[in-house]
């Protein structure tokens, strides 16, 4: 509201003019906006709480599921190890199938638990300088039986000099294991897998190259999300939770890096981990 004094030619006050603006409509809109904003904030808080509860639930359920699975593991193990007498070949075969099935179940529960912890932000990296050449050799040595069983060739292409990087050894190792395991699983028997290490411009690059079934272009974008299982002629026989790549990608991200994928259906895929070196090249 504005009040102006009105004067005649001689400057004598003759009256007042009052100008008011109706702000009530604007005030109403502002109030609506404020209320809508409050509502959004509350919904966001509720969703965060729900998310946290979901993670806690997954954690609790995973722990609970481990107990009967452990019991089954023990009793099947006792049978297979002869604690209840000698087994016929057929009995041994059946029991081994049961044991293997239970092991897959345990693995799935472990995956769920890991991902729940990841999503709850409970994963804190413990980084230290690591000889990546040795880490790759260690991981591939551990997996060598699997390659032998599938008559696959695993070739390492490592540089002469040591490549050091600052990584959380335990977690980073699982990323490598995951990519190499996938390469083997999705490559038919007799195929070849290459693990190639390089470093430069402050970054370390590890490429896992397979000669497997490959991935369709449409599926590439869905690889790194949870429970993603890309359909191909091998995926029926391939076990797994669909959480491995999600975990691997998130761990790479936590290391301030990433995982890239390139693929040709029928020819093979290359998964490349790129992370900052974080240490002086030694």
């Amino acid at each position, binding site marked *: 509201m504005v009040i102006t004094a009105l004067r005649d030619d001689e400057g004598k006050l003759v009256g007042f003019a009052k100008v008011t603006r109706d702000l009530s409509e604007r005030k109403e809109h502002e109030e609506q906006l404020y209320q809508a904003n409050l509502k959004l904030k509350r919904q966001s808080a509720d969703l965060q709480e729900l998310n946290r509860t979901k993670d806690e639930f997954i954690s609790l359920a995973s*722990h609970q599921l*481990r*107990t*009967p*699975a452990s*019991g089954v593991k023990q*009793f099947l*193990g*006792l049978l297979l190890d002869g*604690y209840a007498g000698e087994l016929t070949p057929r009995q041994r075969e059946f029991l081994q199938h049961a044991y293997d099935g239970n092991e897959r179940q345990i693995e799935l529960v472990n995956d769920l638990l890991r991902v729940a912890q990841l999503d709850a932000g409970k994963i804190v990296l413990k980084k230290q300088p690591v000889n990546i050449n040795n880490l790759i050799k260690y991981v591939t040595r551990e997996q060598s039986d699997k390659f032998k069983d599938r008559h696959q060739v695993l070739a390492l292409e490592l540089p002469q000099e040591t490549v050091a990087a600052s990584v959380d050894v335990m977690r980073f190792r699982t990323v490598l294991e995951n990519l190499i395991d996938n390469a083997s699983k999705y490559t038919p028997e007799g195929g070849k897998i290459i693990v190639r290490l390089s470093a430069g411009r402050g970054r370390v690059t590890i490429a896992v190259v397979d000669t497997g079934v490959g991935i369709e272009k449409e599926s590439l974008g869905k690889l790194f999300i949870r429970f993603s299982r890309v359909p191909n002629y091998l995926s029926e026989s391939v076990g797994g939770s669909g959480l491995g790549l999600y975990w691997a990608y998130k761990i790479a991200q936590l290391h301030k890096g990433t995982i890239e994928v390139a693929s040709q259906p029928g020819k093979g895929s290359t998964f490349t981990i790129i992370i900052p070196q974080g240490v002086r090249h030694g």
Partner: protein
Amino acid sequence: MAKILLVEDEKILRDAYTILLESQDGYELDVATNGQEALDLCANNTYDVILLDLMMPVLDGVGFLEKASLKQRSPSTRVVIMSNLSSGEALAKAIELGIHRHAVKSDLSSAEVVALVQEELNA
């Protein structure tokens, strides 16, 4: 004879580990179904190895460790936490209270359980 105490509240696991450990030569096994029973047994016995679960009713693993004062009363006893928790406050507390090792039950085969006990006995 090696004296071993198994503390486990879940029947299926208690039965499996009992069969396993009693079958080994040279092991003498006592079994408790919770931390309180374990305390009572420790009052009258000294064990070489204690396999201790964390989540138990009546008195849990951490409660047992707090009350048993093993470090003072039988420092040569090796305590192994056998749990299906892979992280968390309970495990951290137990580690603080002084345990020698922890293992996730669902990771260990029967042979690995025996190997673990043998390693602790040799320690």
